[in-house]
């Protein structure tokens, strides 16, 4: 009957990153989004909550702009949203993020399952799930491609590099799902409308009673990877001419 928490991160769209002349990056024009694979985590939580006959709750630790994420998250099916609104989020490392999320999970009573995605679109550190599990000292199952829940037992298929494991644990547990675990459908208009009526809990980091929230790693710089390529794109003439141009160039390059 417990709650199922879906952790998602509100991130700038990496396709909108602008590169300054000194190769520093400009995110001011970027649209923000729910981290791609977190949509699958939300869907997995909604499905698990149905099986457990409990509530699905979305959880994000983000700055002021993460307010815009709440309706998007709720339109994907969770019953409630929880937002840890803190300026610390933008510079949080894995230690801070996992500490905050663990404290938030502890504060919500009666949690059966916490679901994260394999990795976030910005960091792709694949770190938070096991770290969060360690903070809570709960069993952890990562790289999950299939979930079945029976009573208080979760059985999961883990897709590793060399094998597929089937493992089992008693709830509560923390898991990370691969995007292949489900199809996260686009929210329907009805779901979008319903989302605005769902309850949202907003907390500050101070409300979580954590004493130390100093990142263990300090970011020194962020530099764009600059791609230097010829960018010769054949658009003129008919297809055969384009193909001939390409083959001629590949010959010149010594590839053919």
């Amino acid at each position, binding site marked *: 009957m417990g709650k199922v928490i879906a952790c998602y991160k509100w991130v700038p769209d*990496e396709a909108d*990153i602008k590169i300054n002349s000194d190769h520093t*990056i400009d995110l001011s024009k970027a649209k923000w989004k729910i981290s791609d694979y977190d949509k699958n985590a939300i869907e997995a939580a909604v499905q698990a909550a149905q099986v457990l006959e409990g509530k699905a709750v979305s959880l994000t630790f983000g700055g002021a702009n993460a307010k815009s994420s709440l309706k998007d998250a709720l339109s994907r099916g969770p019953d409630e949203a929880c937002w840890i609104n803190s300026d610390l989020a933008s510079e949080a*490392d894995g*230690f801070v993020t996992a500490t905050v999320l663990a404290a938030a999970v502890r504060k919500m009573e009666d949690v059966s399952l916490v679901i994260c995605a394999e*990795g976030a679109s*910005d*960091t*792709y*550190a*694949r*770190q938070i799930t*096991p*770290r*969060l*599990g*360690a903070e809570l*000292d709960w*069993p*952890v*199952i*990562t*790289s999950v491609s299939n979930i079945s829940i029976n009573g208080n037992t979760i*059985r999961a298929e883990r897709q*590793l590099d*060399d*094998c*597929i*494991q*089937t*493992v*089992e644990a*008693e709830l509560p*547990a923390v898991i990370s799902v691969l995007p*292949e675990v489900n199809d996260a459908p686009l929210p329907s208009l009805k779901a979008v409308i319903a989302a605005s009526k769902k309850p949202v809990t907003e907390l500050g980091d101070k409300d979580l009673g954590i004493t130390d929230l100093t990142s*263990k*790693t*300090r*970011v*020194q*710089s962020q530099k*764009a*990877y600059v*791609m230097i*390529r*010829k*960018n*010769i*794109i*054949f*658009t003129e003439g008919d*297809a055969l001419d*384009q*193909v001939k141009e390409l*083959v001629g160039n*590949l*010959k010149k*390059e010594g*590839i*053919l």
Partner: protein
Amino acid sequence: MAGIYIYSDKGPLAAELVGFAKTTGKAVNIVTFDQNSAASAAEYGADKVYLLAGDSLLVENNARAAAKFLMNEEAELFLVGSTPRGRDIAARIAGYLQCAMVSDVSSIVINDGQVSTERMIYGGAVIQSEMIDGMAVLTIPPGKFEAASGTAEIATVNINADSRVSLITTAPIVKKGVDISAADKIVCIGLGMEKKQDMQIAQDLAQVLGAEISCTRGIAEERQWLPQYIGISGETVKPSLYLSMGVSGQVQHVVGMREAQIIVGIDINDKAPIFDAADYGIVGDMFEIVPLLIQEIKNI
């Protein structure tokens, strides 16, 4: 004992991490969790191999006990091979130790007890450098350092593994076909190809080029047409020619092939980001372009 501790579920990768660790002049210790791995690890040139014997079929179940061990030993740095198991146990240990962790680092510099790292963020679009004081857990992908060799003694430490997650079954993944990370030429297909039987045109092109076939994540993981894919969560390739059809070229894919000598993209959408990453491109329907291309190459 203070010093650097190393773990990888891939033996050769542990040897590479020893190769790096030895350049720091610190004591280098390998951590293993089973007899066989300990025996192999004893040949990787470390000062000592610890066998943390805990009796679990799941390596990750040793995380809590391994964290305690590292704390007691006053480990300065824990280097772990970047694999799914490696990342999992590394992050759990960092969680139990409440210490710094940086995943998938591309460079490490150690200076006066400070660790500086570089890694990619935003799918590979940006390189972030970080600085850490004190204990750090780092995961490191293969191929960064020369493997070391040399004999070490094995010390066995009995631990209590966490038994809350139990293994029910294991099915090995049999990777059929060639290893694309070593391929000289690659034809890459993306989700723009909708039917499995259409892979034939890619195969025909690969044949005239003497290339191997690879794909994007969706083709491998969702549709399961091919075993390996290119990108940040897949393989990194460095062929002389990478030629794609129906691949949009988003950064998470491009990061895996942007070291190719020549990149060619064929895509119907002239705005597809693959063209920013390409040396040569044709905007067009692959079902029209690729047969012509096969014919032209045959005519050479």
